[in-house]
């Protein structure tokens, strides 16, 4: 008979004791997005979620965090605006509370679905699902319905005018997940993104308010709805007549319909295509007919001063340089 060595006996005893005491654990299948939250108890999670970031709101302000922002007028403020920006895959929910303004005296608070800069709107009227007047939510028109608003993309604005001192309001910003983002304003001059448009007849723009070099790393156009085999699309001249294509735009405003197309692609791409756009605003725009699933991936980085393309002698005066 084979004898068991003393060490093995001891190990076997320890394993047996451990199993009886129930020291074995299983790994919880927690959502990857929980992160550190997965280590908290239910009460601790509730306490963490109850915390709301608060700070005063300035007359001209930019917000990229959720929270509660209170504006109090120490003197008449006749032209104020708050820009709000979220992550590309988020939309913004705005709520007004503790509003103390005199609408009859000309005070107003208006929330806008998008950004407006120098008379130009982002997204443009062509690319936004709502009509221009529907993008404004006026608190003074209806205090109940006019106190909440939800954006269609990752940017929103609040305009307000307050005549009386000691008037004010509180703006609560929340972010909501958007699974298929369309019309995005980038928070940074460098990064990467993939735009997907599944069988929707929409035009989507990714706007970068910096001069950048854009590299298209993947472009997939024209994946049909049915399973029938469809030949690979050929190169089309200037993409005219093509229902699905990607165009690169450059300009000095935020309205993509006022920007200059510097390149367009209407065939699927597996290699690299890059372009330097030395404009204040550089845009990747995906035009979709709704017949296919379209996908474009790209990277972008800030152009340094010495990298900005030099404008040629015969270029238009009001067009920024492209290379």
């Amino acid at each position, binding site marked *: 008979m084979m004898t068991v060595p003393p060490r093995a006996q001891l190990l076997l005893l320890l394993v047996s004791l451990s199993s009886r005491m129930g020291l074995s654990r299983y790994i919880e299948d927690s959502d990857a997005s929980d992160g550190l939250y997965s280590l908290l108890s239910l009460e601790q999670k509730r306490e963490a979620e109850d915390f709301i970031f608060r700070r005063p709101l300035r007359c001209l302000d930019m917000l990229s965090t959720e929270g509660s922002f209170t504006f109090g007028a120490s003197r008449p403020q006749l032209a104020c605006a708050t820009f709000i920006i979220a992550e590309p895959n988020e939309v913004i929910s705005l709520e007004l509370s503790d509003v103390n303004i005199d609408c009859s005296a000309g005070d107003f608070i208006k929330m806008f679905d998008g950004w407006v800069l120098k008379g130009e709107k982002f997204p443009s009227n062509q690319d936004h699902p709502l009509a*221009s007047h529907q993008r404004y939510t006026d608190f003074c028109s209806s205090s109940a319905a006019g106190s909440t608003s939800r954006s269609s993309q990752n940017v929103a604005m609040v305009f307000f005018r307050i005549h009386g001192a000691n008037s004010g309001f509180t703006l609560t910003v929340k972010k909501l997940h958007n699974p298929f983002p369309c019309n995005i304003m980038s928070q940074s001059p460098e990064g990467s993104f993939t735009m997907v448009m599944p069988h929707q007849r929409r035009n989507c723009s990714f706007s970068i308010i910096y001069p950048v070099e854009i590299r298209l790393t993947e472009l997939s156009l024209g994946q049909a709805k049915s399973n029938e085999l469809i030949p690979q699309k050929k190169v089309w001249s200037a993409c005219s007549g093509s229902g699905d294509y990607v165009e690169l735009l450059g300009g000095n405003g935020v309205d993509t319909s006022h920007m200059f197309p510097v390149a367009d692609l209407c065939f699927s791409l597996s290699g690299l295509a890059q372009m330097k756009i030395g404009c204040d605003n550089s845009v990747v725009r995906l035009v979709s007919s709704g017949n296919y699933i379209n996908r474009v991936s790209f990277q972008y980085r800030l152009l340094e001063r010495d990298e900005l393309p030099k404008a040629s002698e015969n270029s238009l005066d009001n067009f920024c340089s492209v290379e």
Partner: protein
Amino acid sequence: MKASFLCFLFLVGLMLVWSADCRPISSRSEMNPPTSRLLSRPLLLRLVDRAKRRMNRRSEDLDLDLDWDQDLDQNQDLDQDQDSGQDSGLDLSLDLTFFLLREALQRAVSEKLLQQVLTNQRLMEQIGK
């Protein structure tokens, strides 16, 4: 000269580490802590304070007196009460340069990162309980 400068940096680093004091952060974040606590703060909180001061300076630069860039119909009164269901004819806009917009955007992103740092500190404190 170079060696003495490196020695100086090393001594500064030693002093910062020596004065570190790992105290739990209160659940309500203080934006402006009392000066008497600064000497005993961990290095990370000192960096957070420095970032906050930089952001406050940037915010003062953006306190501008702006005016509306309006697209008004000829006989439209600015104070006229508008029906939100109709085309108001009053498109509000600010005449803000891209430079100022980018400055504001960078400040907002810095504020977001700062808030993430403070949130992580609170979470780590909760986990440590």
